[in-house]
């Protein structure tokens, strides 16, 4: 009797052990993640990841599709360099106050999208702030860094606003009416390009890919095992820590914060995101993350929401379909929109 009991227990033990080993083996059966790093676009590093368990050849082909699109948009939206055989934003800026410039249809679409977002954010996300942004850009890149003077900012602010841009959809031309004004699509460019690349893969039926272009995350489908990706939102006051975690798939997540690119003068940090109302770095929040399907929309909204109060931002988010937001406040408080 005793022997039999012992045998029973032993059997149960063996079965349990097998179950545990099986479970742990399944856990080890991980997706083989492939990745590629790009350095040359939008002044940031772009990582392309495949969680699709696809072959190296398939991954290379898909990564090439993405890179080709990013390169095209990078050239079109570059405000510092011109390229042979094309008119880009640098060309448009250099011809401010002169004749209309003929551009690619895709560039017209970027500008029309920017116009829509400028209206939605009530001017908080305005690509026609080049005159002001260039002052902050120069100050940030100089050594030592400095703050632009009140006089210089006030003078530059006379030459900004979307009203200074004429877009002729029929003739595919663009003209800046004020010779001192200029376009800067820093708030929307990489998000737009990332979205275009993601759509190209979606049209080919690809799933299980992620494009991470300098904090501009766009997930295509799910991981190969059907699970979601986990994105952590950094604590702006200590980027080693996370303030929030969220599960995402088939959508974009873009964070605007002042903790990665900033200007430091006399020990004080100033974010690179400039509030149109004050002409100075916005300081409403530590960071703002926007989660929505379209990476271009997420990018533009993150910039706009960073430059407005939580109350105004929440009202804006609620007025839009399928847009969620996480605000990390300067004191570390985490606030979320309704459905996240």
């Amino acid at each position, binding site marked *: 009797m005793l022997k039999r009991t012992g045998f029973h*227990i032993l059997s149960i033990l063996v079965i349990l052990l097998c179950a545990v080993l099986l479970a742990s083996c399944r856990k080890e059966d991980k997706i083989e993640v492939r990745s590629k790093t790009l*350095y040359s676009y939008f*002044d940031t*590093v772009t990582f392309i990841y495949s969680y699709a368990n696809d072959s190296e050849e398939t991954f290379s082909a898909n990564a090439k599709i993405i890179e080709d699109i990013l390169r095209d948009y990078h050239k079109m939206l570059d405000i510092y360099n011109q390229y042979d055989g094309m008119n880009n934003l640098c060309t448009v800026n250099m011809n401010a106050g002169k004749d209309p410039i003929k551009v690619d249809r895709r560039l017209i679409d970027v500008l029309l999208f920017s116009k829509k977002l400028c209206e939605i954010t009530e001017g908080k996300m305005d690509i026609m702030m080049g005159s002001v942004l260039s002052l902050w850009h120069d100050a940030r890149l100089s050594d030592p860094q400095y703050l632009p003077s009140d006089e210089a900012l006030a003078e530059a602010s006379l030459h900004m606003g979307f009203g200074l841009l004429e877009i002729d959809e029929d003739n595919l031309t663009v003209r800046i009416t004020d010779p001192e004004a200029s376009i800067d699509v820093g708030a929307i460019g990489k998000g737009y390009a990332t979205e275009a690349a993601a759509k190209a893969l979606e049209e080919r039926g690809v799933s299980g890919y*992620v494009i991470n272009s300098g904090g501009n995350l766009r997930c295509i489908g799910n991981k190969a095992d059907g699970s979601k*990706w986990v*994105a952590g939102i950094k604590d702006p006051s200590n980027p080693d820590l*996370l303030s929030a*975690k969220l599960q995402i798939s088939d959508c974009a*997540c873009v964070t605007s914060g002042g903790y990665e690119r900033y200007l430091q003068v006399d020990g004080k940090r100033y974010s690179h995101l400039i509030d149109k109302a004050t002409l100075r770095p916005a300081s409403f929040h530590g960071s703002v993350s926007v989660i929505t399907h379209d990476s271009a929309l997420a990018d533009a909204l993150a910039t706009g929401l960073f430059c407005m109060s939580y109350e105004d931002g929440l009202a804006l988010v609620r007025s839009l379909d399928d847009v969620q937001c996480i605000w990390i406040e300067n004191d570390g408080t985490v606030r979320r929109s309704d459905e996240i």
Partner: protein
Amino acid sequence: MKSDKKTRLRDIILIASLAVLGLVLLVVMRPSSESGSTAVVQVDGVVIARYPLSEDGIHVLNGGLNTIEIKDGKVRMMEAHCPNHECVHQGWISRGHQSIVCLPNKLVVTIEGDNSVVDFTL
């Protein structure tokens, strides 16, 4: 009396079995320790070096353009010849979802072998 004794023996066997099972579970399911993590250095998309985070040290990389330091299971960019030193400002990293980027020198440091539940940080 006899059956009581039997029950006690069965109890002992059961408890002992559970203890063994518990020990086995501990060994099998033990989370991989920090010492398994590796810092992977890429320049222009090519892996040029791997360093276990368990071994403290200072490594000059990329023809002297970048220097990383590994200490207490973490890695940081200690020195860099680049305009803004954004890579140096990024501080210490140790988790799989973290990276240090020096864009001007096309150098990226990532962490491998860390079973982090987070895939990306923003």
